[in-house]
């Protein structure tokens, strides 16, 4: 038992352990999702993160130690974003034809995300700092953190809110759109990407490559638009 503990102490310090845990949690979550026939609440991102967090809490491991291993997976987000160009290219003809509807839908979505957050947040009595951190929640993490900080919110809190919005969009997106009778994968993907960025884009790619491509497009565009609109809305609402 003592020997086993020694091994644990050694491994817990190594990036390998938490890298292995991250990938294994994903494999388990993915299997669970597939075997449940794609049950929305068993979303792979949600389940994997829950598994990892529970393991970290149970072993008393801090996040920095975990990230020593997690960073190798995390790093791939950048190259994956660059590679979104490939599925996007497959849609280029449709994109050329529909740039105007897409632009208007983008604006409608971006405004809805920010304005509804302010109205709901004020109505539910959230303080200004929390509200500022919450407003850019439909942008990707680095953008949301930058915007929140500039306006007097908290960057770390903004990152958590981005994550929670992404998971909400990934879990609720497909069932919600199915309920509304939406069939077009492009419409589904774009709405999910505009609203809930990368995590919903990951979900859209599980649906189809076309949905994924449109989600990636929506994510990229709304990141930029949110950076412009949040300061404007903060001023409009007198925050």
């Amino acid at each position, binding site marked *: 038992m003592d020997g086993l503990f020694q091994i644990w102490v050694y491994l817990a310090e190594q990036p390998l352990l938490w890298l292995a845990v991250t990938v294994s949690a994903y494999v388990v979550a993915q299997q669970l999702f597939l075997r449940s026939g794609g049950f929305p609440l068993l979303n792979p991102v949600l389940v994997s*993160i829950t598994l*990892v967090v529970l393991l970290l809490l149970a072993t008393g491991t801090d996040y920095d130690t975990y990230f020593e291993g997690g960073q190798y997976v*995390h790093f791939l987000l950048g190259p994956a974003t660059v*590679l979104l160009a490939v*599925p996007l290219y497959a849609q280029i003809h449709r994109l050329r034809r529909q740039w105007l509807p*897409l632009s208007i839908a983008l604006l*409608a979505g971006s405004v809805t995300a920010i304005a509804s957050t302010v109205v709901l947040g004020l109505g539910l009595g959230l303080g200004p700092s*929390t509200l500022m951190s919450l407003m850019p929640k439909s942008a990707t993490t680095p953008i949301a953190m930058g915007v929140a900080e500039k306006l007097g919110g908290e960057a770390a809190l903004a990152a958590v809110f981005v994550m929670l919005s992404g998971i909400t969009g990934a879990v609720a997106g497909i069932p919600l759109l199915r309920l509304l009778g939406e069939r077009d994968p492009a419409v589904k993907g774009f709405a999910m990407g505009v609203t809930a960025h990368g995590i919903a884009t990951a979900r859209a790619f599980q649906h189809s490559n076309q949905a994924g491509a449109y989600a990636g497009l929506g994510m990229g565009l709304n990141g930029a638009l949110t950076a412009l609109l949040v300061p404007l809305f903060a001023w409009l609402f007198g925050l």
Partner: protein
Amino acid sequence: MIPAFIALVLLLQLAGEALVRALGIPVPGPVIGMLLLLVIVIFQGGPPKPLQALATGLLNHLSLLFIPAGAGVISYLALLADNWLPVLVTIIISTMLTIVVTAFTLKFLIRRMNREDS
């Protein structure tokens, strides 16, 4: 030649990061990298097979890549303790509303465009 395309993707990401910093654009570097790759692929008349394989391989498991950042929530559970309920309600309602508004707007405009065309 998969390594050549891995190098291309990394270099474009690097170029994106450099451009964003040089020009002060409020967009993440990899998004600029994506636009650069799109321009290259358009000029090439389509992505070559190895690049296609690389993209499919990584994007099919995009979910995996969000786990480390997502687990970061653990550091801020205390910050959320005070007002987790109003925050969660705001996020859930606003997210669902945004999905519906975006999808309806796009659907409506595409239908109108198709009617005008025919």
